[in-house]
């Protein structure tokens, strides 16, 4: 019973959205919508602006997460595996942007972008997205490295493998789950950014969240709900995919992340 209540609380907002997206009209106090339709979805999926926004968002999130992993890897390895004075403060500094409000960062970045002429460009948006994703990536990967055992690499070294070979045949394969989780997180953070995209892009780059945001003021609940569900699809799919990385002990999810 306790567990059922947890589930219900977690899924209530999603269910409401789904009901709205498929309804023609639903008003309090009716427990369920009176009429059903899938018009909202078909309208959205036939609109080229929506499709382009989806592709743009996916591509942007993909590039951002890849760059975050490449830039974050050496820093995370240093922080996770080595001891050095002041390490504690580096940890805190990395942790900072993962919890401070994005709105505040956005203000700073938007001003910075205007100063450097990157405002309104895709490069500017990518760089802006990396500001919240990189610390998250480094934080996640450093945790992975803190549990990583270099002795695997030493074994390969003693068996004659060169450092490059070790990186590709041993290190990457051992770290694959950690890299995947860190990358997926970066992807999700970038995917759900509308604020930074709006502030730095100045409305010239339309991603799905930007579209959704503008729809909120004008559109009807059915359209907004359908758009929201489209927007939610990748995160839900990604979370479901991470289930693959879970071992028999469910508490592992904490260990892996």
């Amino acid at each position, binding site marked *: 019973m306790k567990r059922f209540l947890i589930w219900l609380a977690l899924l209530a907002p999603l269910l409401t959205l789904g009901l709205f997206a498929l309804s023609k009209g639903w008003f309090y106090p009716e427990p369920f919508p009176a009429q059903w339709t899938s018009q909202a979805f078909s309208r959205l999926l036939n609109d080229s602006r929506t499709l382009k926004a989806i592709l743009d968002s996916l591509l942007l999130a993909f590039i951002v997460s890849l760059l975050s992993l490449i830039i974050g890897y050496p820093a995370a390895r240093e922080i996770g595996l080595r001891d050095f004075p002041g390490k504690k403060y580096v940890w805190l500094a990395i942790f900072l942007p993962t919890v401070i409000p994005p709105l505040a960062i956005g203000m700073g970045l938007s001003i910075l972008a205007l100063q450097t002429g990157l405002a309104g460009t895709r490069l500017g948006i990518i760089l802006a997205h990396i500001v919240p994703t990189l610390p998250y990536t480094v934080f996640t990967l450093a945790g992975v490295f803190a549990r990583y055992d270099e002795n695997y690499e030493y074994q390969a070294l*003693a068996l*004659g*493998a*060169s450092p490059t070979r070790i990186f590709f045949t041993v290190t990457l*394969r051992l770290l694959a789950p950690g890299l995947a989780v860190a990358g997926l997180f970066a992807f999700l953070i970038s995917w759900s950014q509308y604020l930074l995209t709006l502030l730095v892009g100045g409305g010239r780059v339309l991603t799905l969240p930007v579209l959704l945001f503008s729809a909120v003021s004008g559109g009807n609940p059915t359209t907004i709900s359908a758009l929201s569900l489209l927007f939610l699809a990748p995160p839900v799919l990604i979370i479901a995919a991470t289930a693959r990385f879970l071992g028999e002990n469910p508490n592992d999810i904490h260990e892996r992340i």
Partner: protein
Amino acid sequence: MTTLTFTHITKSYPKRDTPVLDDFLLDVQSGELVSLLGPSGIGKSTLLKLIAGIERPDAGDIRFDGESVLSTAPNQREAVFMFQKAYLFPFLNVGENIAFGLKVKGFSTKERLIKVAEMLDLIGLPGIEKRPPNELSGGEQQRVALARSLVIRPKVLLLDEPFNSLDRPVRLSLQEAVRNIQRELGITTLLVTHDLDEAMAMSDRMALMMGGKVAAIDKPQRLFQKPPCVETAKFVGVKLFIEGVASSGTLVSAEWGKLKIEDEQKVGRSIFAIRPEHIRIQKEKCENALAGVVKNCVYRGTQIEMKIALGERVLRAHIPAKNEIMPAEEPVQVILPKEHLFAVN
């Protein structure tokens, strides 16, 4: 077949005041198994890392067959490891794990298959090529790790407490297996351990490390029965040390009185010692007998550990278990047989 030589090795770490290794000298013969014993933090594992090239010494040289390896890259040294954990690559099956080094060295698939099968026979686990490492028991994983290391016919095998995490029966059988394989292949081996029993059972020679140096090195029997210095004696379980003046077969000690000794050469201020299992406890007086009372008897299967009070002092003796356990406060004679008293300075 490779000899291994350390000349005046010194190694410090920034966080430690004293060097871990300080003018360390050791010669290991070809095919020999030398164990390095000593408390933790004494630099045993550091030594292995220096050999493998994971760390560099501050001074001194390491030679394989008389040639310095300090300028050789770690992956060219042919010095392999076996740790407390097997570190089998989880994404490869047992056969691929063993073949890892062969693949690096460019052996063909066919050669790899043959050599892997040979090694699996040698470690007593034939036919498990296709199994994933995580399906094996701890002992089996260690056997596979050994096979992976030895299949490339390395010059030196470095064992860093490889049996530590195993249960006693598995540990004993793996010790035997490693020792037999090491002898069969004749691979020069260093074994780092803090377990005296393990070192005695496996080594050609045991080296006791103290203060960054080898404090004593000898065959296990010799080091156990006649340790050359007080530190070594304490390490191998000697608890009774008698300080006194020796002359013509007698040791005169302020604390223990006059005792007969066999060592006629020893003259002047000396320290003699005796192993606890050589002390006899009986009712009758005889040569080198001291009167005491039983404090405490602990039954340990093959032997009984006794604590005997002699005035203020307390002495520990291990007597065979066929004796009856004596009640506390029983008066007894403690015999220190002269043939078992040996000098430790």
